């Protein structure tokens, strides 16, 4: 089935992104010093912006990632 349409992939607001980081830190039981958080959150925001560019790009449902990648 062809679903090639412009997907909606809004960049989450910074509060939501921080909650996502909170959940990841808690579930992985990572020992994070409070002083590191601003830097971690800034990095995650940059990743989320990059991901939004990817997520908004329409791809056919049938387009699999090649399991063996040899360029």
């Amino acid at each position, binding site marked *: 089935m062809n679903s090639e349409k412009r997907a909606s992939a809004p960049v989450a607001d910074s509060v939501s992104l921080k909650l*996502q*980081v909170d*959940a*990841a*830190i808690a579930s*992985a*039981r*990572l*020992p*994070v*010093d409070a002083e*590191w958080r601003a*830097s*971690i*959150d800034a*990095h*995650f925001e*940059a*990743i989320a*912006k*990059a*991901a939004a*560019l*990817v*997520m908004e*790009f329409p*791809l056919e449902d049938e*387009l*699999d*990632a*090649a399991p*063996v*990648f*040899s*360029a």
Partner: protein
Amino acid sequence: MIDGSTSAAEIAAKVASGAVNARAVVDATLARIAALNPKVNAFTDVVADRARQTADALDARRARGDALGPLAGAPFAVKNLIDIAGLPTRAGSKINRDLPPARRDGALVRRLEAAGAILVGALNMGEYAYDFTGENVHDGPSRNPHALDHMTGGSSGGSGAAVAAGLVPLALGSDTNGSIRVPSAFCGCFGLKPTYGRLSRAGSFPFVSSLDHLGPFARSVADLAAAYDAMQGGDPDDPVATTRAMEPALPDIERGTSDLRISSAGGYFAQYGERDCFAAVSKVTRALGVTRTVELPEGGRARAAAYVITAAEGAALHLDRLRQRAADFDPAVRDRLIAGSAIPASWVIKAQRFRRWYRERLLQLFNEVDVILAPATPCRAPKIGQTTFVLDGVTMPVRPNIGIFTQPISFVGLPVVAVPVWVDGGLPLGVQVIAAPWKEAHALRVARALEQSGIAQARVASL
């Protein structure tokens, strides 16, 4: 006479003819490292005893009349994420120093030594290869031999510095998002990132398996090709290593470029950089008579997808270490890895699927052209410690943005030779010579033509 500018090919010819013995080459190399490494901080380990023993064995073989390999007596060093028997593979980290020593050399070390080259040590790098600067909080920054207060580029910074300083004619590095091409550009040497899967990664500490490559640095295209040829061949110990037959490149490098369709990259690859970077590309295109420009579609999105995959796979690899020894990481690396641990699977899977889409578009382009030229970096080597730069009027953080032109290429595993270009009296710049998958020989032929015409040149720094 062997000095810092002597090529591996010249050394091999002299050793083979008996004009010089391998032990003398090694002793001269060790003396040069002892004298100059304190300035450039390229080496983290020097395996002097091993190198002398290897040299003595080589000289004994020659005395017996045995055939010597094509790199006989040529000293080389490897980024310290590649295993060296007897040393812990630190991969630029503090944490890995507690690992037991490697029991065996990495696959590429074994192959270079089988060709007669002599390992002399391990090279500085950014922690766990998550780096474009060549800085390292544990070992200190590697320093650009052409301007010691400037970055070498990363993460294979020690590899670029060792070759540009004339400490060794050959070095190995790794390239996940640009870590061979960036230090080649900043330090002014030739670097080859082969096709993904072409050279075995067995016996090296990984970073992002989807994108990791190993490859050589050299001061001449012939040395680059000779080292590449010596390292080719499948390897069951690396699950992505190709089963293709070896395709030696060295015999072809003098063939010229008249039968190659060469184009420069427009669009994304012609913006977001300092003017001099594009001047370097123009110098190359003029020399080659290139008039055509092609657009690699969605270059920015490809870079974004590589960024997401890198952060996610890197975080997954290091999760236990983050849990157990977070305080022992370089803070700049640690914070990015922790951020990467929060990436949802849907982002990574979409990025991998986009990679397939992008690869198919690029393969279509290679129906029309054989080689594409693009800048290697958006700037010359920044100063060590510099955290921001201005590209196209926008202030950006240095560390993640040095690789904006390299990431979209390694993302789909294309082979690239980074060639050093000097546009004025300042620091060098790099141009990526990009070929179709498995066509390293095309990129090496173009690089050799540029070297022969003097447009691309790897200079030994005056130190």
